[in-house]
């Protein structure tokens, strides 16, 4: 059964997909959640709800359910870092019960990179095994252990890829496995180096991967060169070329740097949206949800 989600429909129709990331905060206050969601504005196909990337925050399941109730379509992010297969599958059933139609399967930043660096990790299964589990739940209505799901279960599963993971051969093997395991869409780490991104997606095109999945490159508005340097230093999946950092540094004061950050994104969007195999864009807010409508506006989306 096909899930009746906007995201699934857009993939099927070949519409240009626009998603954005919402980062839940350390709060249980409904109003603060609503106000952040309001800033995201209209024009989005769906909104990703991140799963504790930097440590404890409002649960992505609860926030996703709240969004679904308020008419915003969530992409429920699940990392395999904090939950074993029992909890993951139980939460998938829970998510479907609460009206969630989209799930993004990730391994998640290692817990030593979070604010709870002393916690244990789980990693009972990896992101590809989680994707395969969702596919099994969708297609055969069975859990990993073969137990039958009562009634319907319908959810569209996606995964993350880093276009800049080298060597390219290993990168494509991994991407192909994600698609084979059932990833119907792929959101990527932030793209700043268009030429390298082009090499990656051309390789994916050649392997026939882009025919089977919707590639949605990540776009990250940077507020300052300091932020760019910090992200690049601390998170190895953030590949930010020196030219980008130099451009921000030489732009001027804080306001001009913020505008330059948006201008960089807008230029990247302008170029990559026409690359063969690109099906949309995913705005990685990193908690700066207020930049999303500005960027969409500037990019004419």
């Amino acid at each position, binding site marked *: 059964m096909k899930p009746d989600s906007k995201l699934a429909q857009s993939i099927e129709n070949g519409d240009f997909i626009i998603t954005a990331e919402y980062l839940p905060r350390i709060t249980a206050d409904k109003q603060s959640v609503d106000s952040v969601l309001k800033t995201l504005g209209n024009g989005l196909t769906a909104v990703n709800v991140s799963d504790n990337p930097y440590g404890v925050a409002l649960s992505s399941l609860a926030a996703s359910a709240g969004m679904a109730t308020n008419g915003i379509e969530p992409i429920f992010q699940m990392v*395999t*870092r904090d939950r074993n*297969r029992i909890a993951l599958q139980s939460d998938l059933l829970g998510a479907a019960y609460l009206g969630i139609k989209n799930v993004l399967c990730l*391994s998640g*930043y*290692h817990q*030593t*990179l979070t604010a709870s660096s002393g916690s244990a*990790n789980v*990693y*009972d*299964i*990896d*992101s*590809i*095994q989680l994707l*395969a*589990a969702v596919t099994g739940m969708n297609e055969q209505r069975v859990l*990993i252990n073969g137990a039958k799901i009562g009634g319907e279960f319908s959810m569209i599963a996606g995964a*993350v*890829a*880093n276009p800049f*993971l*080298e*060597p390219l*051969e*290993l990168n494509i*093997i*991994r991407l*192909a*496995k994600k698609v*084979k*395991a059932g990833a119907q869409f792929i959101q990527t*780490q932030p793209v700043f180096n268009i030429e390298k991104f082009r090499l990656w997606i051309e390789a994916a095109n050649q392997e026939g991967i882009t025919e089977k999945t919707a590639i949605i490159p990540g776009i990250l508005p940077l507020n300052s060169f300091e932020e760019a340097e910090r992200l690049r230093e601390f*998170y*190895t*999946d953030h*590949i930010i070329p020196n030219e980008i950092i130099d451009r921000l540094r030489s732009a001027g004061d804080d306001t001009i740097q913020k505008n330059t950050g948006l201008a960089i994104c807008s230029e990247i969007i302008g170029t990559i949206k026409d690359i063969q195999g690109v099906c949309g864009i995913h705005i990685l807010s990193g908690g700066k949800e207020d930049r999303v409508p500005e960027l969409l506006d500037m990019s004419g989306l």
Partner: protein
Amino acid sequence: MIVAQRKIIPEILEKLKYHKKILVLGCGTCVTVCLAGGEREVCIIASALRMASKLHGYSLDIEELTIERQCDNIFIEMAAEATERNDAVLSLGCGAGVQAVAERYPYKPVYAGLDTAFIGILEERGVWTEKCIACGECVLSDYGGICPVARCAKRLLNGPCGGSKEDRCEVSPDRECAWQLIYRRLKDIGQLDRLKNIAVPKSWNKSRDGGYRVIIRDDHRI
């Protein structure tokens, strides 16, 4: 081998504070090789404890002994008299050794002088690295002899995470990405196709998750 490292002297001293006569008991196997709990380290720790206790205004009476294997009752027996004449034992064995000694001498306090760290190898002089977590169901044959369970920080079985950068792990710049090593090794031995298969979820029953493990070999039982 099992790799361990010595606890700091103040921590050991604190644990021993209710005793006067201490047997520092070394082990001649793994912890000797990794320079943590052999005859030489017994001598060093005993001297350090004597000095440290004097600096604190009292004097520990310390006896030194190293047996061949602390995880084996036949050898533990050889420490029986020395254990008897002391108030407590400071074991420089691995976690298995400390427990084996404690089980053999139920009325004698036994303290751990080492932190047991991992199953690993000597990489270069003074550097040991972890290679195995004893998961109970070896997957090395599928990964070119490099273990993703022990050496990938997320124990991923299907390829690297997005944080693998220039051969390093996202956790720390001084750790290698196991998946880059697995990829290169499988390519070198002509088995890269192995990576294209989706590895199914591993059963962790034979690992620590199934409770502590016991092996019974009926063919060796009397």
